[in-house]
């Protein structure tokens, strides 16, 4: 039995559809219920929904054998897991954004508001830039508007939220997409089953790329 941690929400539903299309369906998951765990014994899979930012923890600690997490989560928390596949969905980018009229003054410490403290620190350290990280848990866009920070480091999908708040993305830090991850110990004991899943998902991903 392979335990699969899926990220709750729109991305998770897309991910489940990919598993379903690869032959790992579990019809009960589509029933409208409050259940969190779904199993298809015949196919050897057990799915459970968890908060997207927790998927990596479930997999790293072995509660799930595999899972799907955004690259943003993997870069931020650096879990000790295998990253087996880029599923090419949930695509967006980690970017630096600021007010439309922002001009960076390299003579001053840059105040950076973000949920992704580790990513921000690593990015600016690589550029040798002195920053003051302000950790926020939501509504990051408001920080530069109220003067709390000079810039924000956040996920940008379409850029609509930024635009509506008179903000613009200035630099792309890294492209983001959903990744299939595996627990390093579970991979060694269930390698055939996990590799079968990864292989089928890889084929599906390639086929979808070609039809785009």
């Amino acid at each position, binding site marked *: 039995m392979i335990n699969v941690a899926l990220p709750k929400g729109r991305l998770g539903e897309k991910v489940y559809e990919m598993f379903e299309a690869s032959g790992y369906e579990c019809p009960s998951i589509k029933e409208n219920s409050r259940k969190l765990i779904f199993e298809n014994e015949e196919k050897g899979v057990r799915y459970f929904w968890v908060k997207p930012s927790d998927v990596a923890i479930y997999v790293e600690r*072995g509660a799930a054998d595999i899972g799907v997490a955004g690259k943003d989560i993997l870069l931020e928390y650096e879990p000790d*897991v*295998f990253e087996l596949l880029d599923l090419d969905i949930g695509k967006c980018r980690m970017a630096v954004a600021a007010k439309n009229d922002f001009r960076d003054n390299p003579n001053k410490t840059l105040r950076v508001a973000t949920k992704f403290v580790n990513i921000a620190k690593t990015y600016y350290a690589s550029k040798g830039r002195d920053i003051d990280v302000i950790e926020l848990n939501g509504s990051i866009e408001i920080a530069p508007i109220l003067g709390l920070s000079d810039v924000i480091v956040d996920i940008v999908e379409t850029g609509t939220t930024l635009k509506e708040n008179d903000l613009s993305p200035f630099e792309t830090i890294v492209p983001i997409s959903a990744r299939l991850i595996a627990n390093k*110990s579970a991979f*060694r*004991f269930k390698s055939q089953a996990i590799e079968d899943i990864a292989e089928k998902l890889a084929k599906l991903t390639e086929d979808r790329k070609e039809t785009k």
Partner: protein
Amino acid sequence: MIDPINNDLMKFEESLIFRLRSLYKGYGYLPYKMSKFEEYDFYLNNKDFLTSTNVIAFNDTDGRLLAMKPDVTLSIIKNASEEQGCTTKYYYNENVYRVSPRTKSYREIMQTGLECVGDVGVYNMCEVLSLAAKSLGMISEDYVLDISHMGILAGVLAEVEADDAVKSSIVELVASKNVHDLEKLCEANGISNDVCNKIAALISIHGSMTSVLARLDKVGFAGEAANAVAELKEICGVLCAEDGADNIRLDFSLANDMSYYNGIVFKGFIKDLPDSVLSGGRYDRLLHKMGKSLGAIGFAVYLDVLEPLTGDGKEYDVDALLLYCDEDDCGKVIKAVEAAREAYGTVVAEKAIPQKLRYRVLLKMDKNGGVAPVGKE
């Protein structure tokens, strides 16, 4: 006399320590007891060889800066002899103090392991790998010992003309079996398809010793990498004929957090435990840095990660709870406890029933100083 190995007073990992000691002693490894503290400078000078650079430091009464030891190997190899054709073999059972990558705070980690230092050859490497496999077998039948050779990836990377940051990114990608980002990184840094394909092959090839070695031949490694493959083949040739060969696999993702290893590296896993329980490898570079032209190989078993194997213990805290009151004669209570111990096993005497105590039988004193059960068992 209590049998330390089979006594049920012991937790699983406690009895394991005795069994491992007995195993290592059987192969001529001598016990090594070290001080809890070392000179801080010693670790500072060798920080590249520590898994974490964080060390708990403090001043001794004379002002010297000391450290709680974060590592055992460094201390042991100071005593290695340089006799031709000989090795110094030690085993240990020590606590080390390291920062946990998960909690980002210090933890005390109980380690048991061994080191073989000196004129290390293929026999010594096979012996240490075989002892690693036997150690894992003592923990569970469901184990995997993964072996890799750092020389293969190092040999391939030696061909790459890129800065060290790119090379360490490649090592990280190999450690996480991440082929998709490896391809992007190689393309962005002008690394040839041939080199990229070789590294990708190292990521995707893993499994039993015979199947992996056959597939490695087809990749076409050269130079240092080919020498490493040849050494790996020689070792696997010996191990294939040993008991437990089915539990030994080759996996080249064993690359990260192993900066001080230069040849054979290995990690042990137990089914249903999420982390590796054993880690080791060849670390000649550390000896060379200390000015000794010796070889060295060793491993450690992390006993703290074995705690889940102990289970939740018995259903009851004690077999019997004996209730007495202030009016009872103390001498009679002591005799009653002795009698209850004979009849039931473990006994605790209290004046009231403790809320959280789980007991199998409730006993009361009778007028004659005897004990009688109250209600059903």
